[in-house]
């Protein structure tokens, strides 16, 4: 942990603070939510790394998608993700968000979450234990360090593609496009 290295702080305050002040928004998207309470309470105490659950996406910069994503939950997930202020990171739990997992041929569960919102990191497993969560977070740190955790930039860059994917699923989404969507109709 380089939290105490003053030089690094002075050089890259943005990266450093983003790393060590991860405010988490999580809501019960899937079964992985069961792993969150242990990781933030006394046993594992995520707060010592500055990871702290907050109440609204406005205050958060890390989005934990805990488990499989049904069609019904995806819409709030997209909206919540869009409401978080940039820079923001997303970490998906378990195998379901990666490729559908055991729900891959379900009629109301999506298979690839990263078609709809950008995912900065996956924690594989069904389901991952708190240790894995911490592993995921430390991995996220390295990604932030290396500048690879740029999902929010990707989302903005390729917004028309994401939006068209979302709209293919739902038809009308119920809120206007977040960014410019040129070429959306052409696809």
């Amino acid at each position, binding site marked *: 942990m380089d939290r105490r290295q003053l030089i690094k702080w002075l050089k890259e305050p943005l990266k450093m603070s983003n790393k060590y002040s991860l405010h988490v928004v999580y809501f019960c998207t899937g079964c992985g939510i069961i792993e969150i309470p242990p990781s933030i309470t006394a046993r594992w105490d995520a707060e010592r790394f500055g990871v702290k659950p907050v109440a609204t996406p406005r205050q958060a910069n890390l989005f934990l998608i805990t488990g499989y994503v049904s069609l019904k939950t995806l819409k*709030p997930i997209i*909206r*919540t993700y869009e*409401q978080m202020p940039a820079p923001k990171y997303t970490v998906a739990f378990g195998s379901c968000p990666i490729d559908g997992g055991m729900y891959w041929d379900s009629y109301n569960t999506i298979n690839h979450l990263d078609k709809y919102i950008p995912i900065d990191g996956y924690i594989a497993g069904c389901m991952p234990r708190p240790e894995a969560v911490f592993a995921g977070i430390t991995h996220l740190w390295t990604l932030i360090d290396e500048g690879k955790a740029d999902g929010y930039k990707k989302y903005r860059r390729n917004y028309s593609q994401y939006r068209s994917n979302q709209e293919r699923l739902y038809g009308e989404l119920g*809120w206007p496009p977040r960014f410019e969507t040129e070429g959306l109709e052409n696809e």
Partner: protein
Amino acid sequence: MLEAILVVAFGGALVSYFLGRWTSRIRDYFALGVWIAILGMTSYLHQIEPKISTFYPGFLGYDLSLRITSLSWLFAVTVAAVSVLVIIYSFRYIKGHEKRNLFYFLLLLVNGGMMGITLSGDLLSFYIFWEIASWSTFLLISFNRGKALPAGLRYVVMSVIGSAAMLVATLSLYSSYGTLALSDLSTHLATAGGGYVIFIFLLFFVSFGVKNAIVPFHTWLPPAHSEAPAPFSAVLSGLLVKMGTYGLILIFYLIAGMKIFLGLGTGIWSFHYIISALAGVTIVVPSFIAVLQDDAKKTLAWSTVGQAGYIVLGVSFGTGLALAAGIFHFLNHAMFKSLLFMSIGTVERKTSTRDLNELGGLVKRTPVLFVVTLVGAAGLIGIPLTNGFFSKWMLYKTLILEGNPFLAFAALVGTWGTVLYSYRLIHNVFFGQLPEKYRDVTRTSFSTYLPMVILSIAIVFFGVFPGFLLGEINVVTTSLGFTPLDVQLWGISSDSGTVNTLNILAALAVVGVMVWYLFRSSAETTEVSQEDSYTAGAPVPQGRFTYTADFYRPLEKIIRPYLKDRIEDFYGMLVGFVGVLSDTVRRIYTGYVGTYVAYILALLAAVLLVQLGWKPW
């Protein structure tokens, strides 16, 4: 000059009525011109030597006279200034109403009556102008039909009771001393017995208390203020009610004189202390009743009662600082309460409701209205750098330093009631999601905004430089026999406590700019619409997504049982009693000739028998 003011005022009222039958546009500007002229004339009289001029020799044996002193000048100029603004505001508000001419006529009549009240030099002309203002007020309150009718009736009945008390007191003074001139009475009353002075004080207190809505006499005010047309509510709350204050100052400090007034009774049983305690009740209870109201104008109306409590507390407490605070608060109240009534009136006109549970989100449609209302509410609460702060500060200071912490407690707790209802007012009208039905609310015209903007500028200006007004008030209190205060442009300095608005202003400005710079220099923001709000991912429901209904429900559950207006119930009982009495009396006329004949013979027989038996004659 004084006569000219009254002639212009009353003549203007009449002429504007007949002008209105011809063309409404010229009537509007004429009415405005009349009052601008009056304002000009009144301000011209600034700090002239007190003088008395008889304008009507020999009305029923009296010489009716006018008189200008620093005290009456202050009230008169306030009346004139607020009247001008209210007339500007009425241009748009009253458009499309059927009885416009009547409205203008009555409005100008009320204002003229108030000018007369402030300028009158003897109690009889005071009474006459008082009555003229009272009945025209009655007609104006009833103006909006519907619920306004019982409100107007309630007002006028209580007002008539008050004037009856005043009439008795005035005539009793006359029969004792043979004069009614304000300047002469004080020498006579100085020799009067305590009991007689209390009798006179009580009668006047009933009269002015009714007008000023001090607690046992306040019940007319809430319905009247809320049902009157908005421009008139502004006049009613800002000026007319405060004519009671003027009367109280007149009777306590000018006619009786400070020594007599403060010398009645001892300790907590002294007269002025009892009135102060009543004023304390007037502050607390109505301020919290205002919190419970769902009707925006009713909230403001109850708030008027509460604020009147501050003013009366200042007037009756009996120190120079308190009196100055009372007068200052009167001026401030005239500013912010007229502003608030105007703004709520505009809201009502735009949305055709004033139910706080219905409104919301208007900040997006009428931002200027929001800002001026905010300034008004800030003045009402007494946020530092608005005028309301300063008067309240003076009042609290003198209450505490004179050893009356409980009165100070009442006043301070009342302020918390004020905070609660003021915020609710702002919040429920302007904040929250804009309901679908108010999407096409448009901005109002310039003439509606102008008076409100002027008033809000005045609120802030006199909050930062209270010295402008305090200087005038200082002259008044000095003329009433108090030691002058050390007034500066930026506030008051004394050994026991100084307040310097410039310090606060400078600190707030510097710190504000620094915080603003910090805010600006950090990362950019993106503007989002109202619909983009946190809803746990769900889209914002269309229609109502606001928390306005039952805003203070947890509090209401606790305090509502204690805030029932028992005085109103008592009056209701009295009215019921009179009704029963009247019904009983009416049955004397049975409709049978036989009974009637029996009455005649019975009277004859009775008189004869009494004469034979007792020989009283």
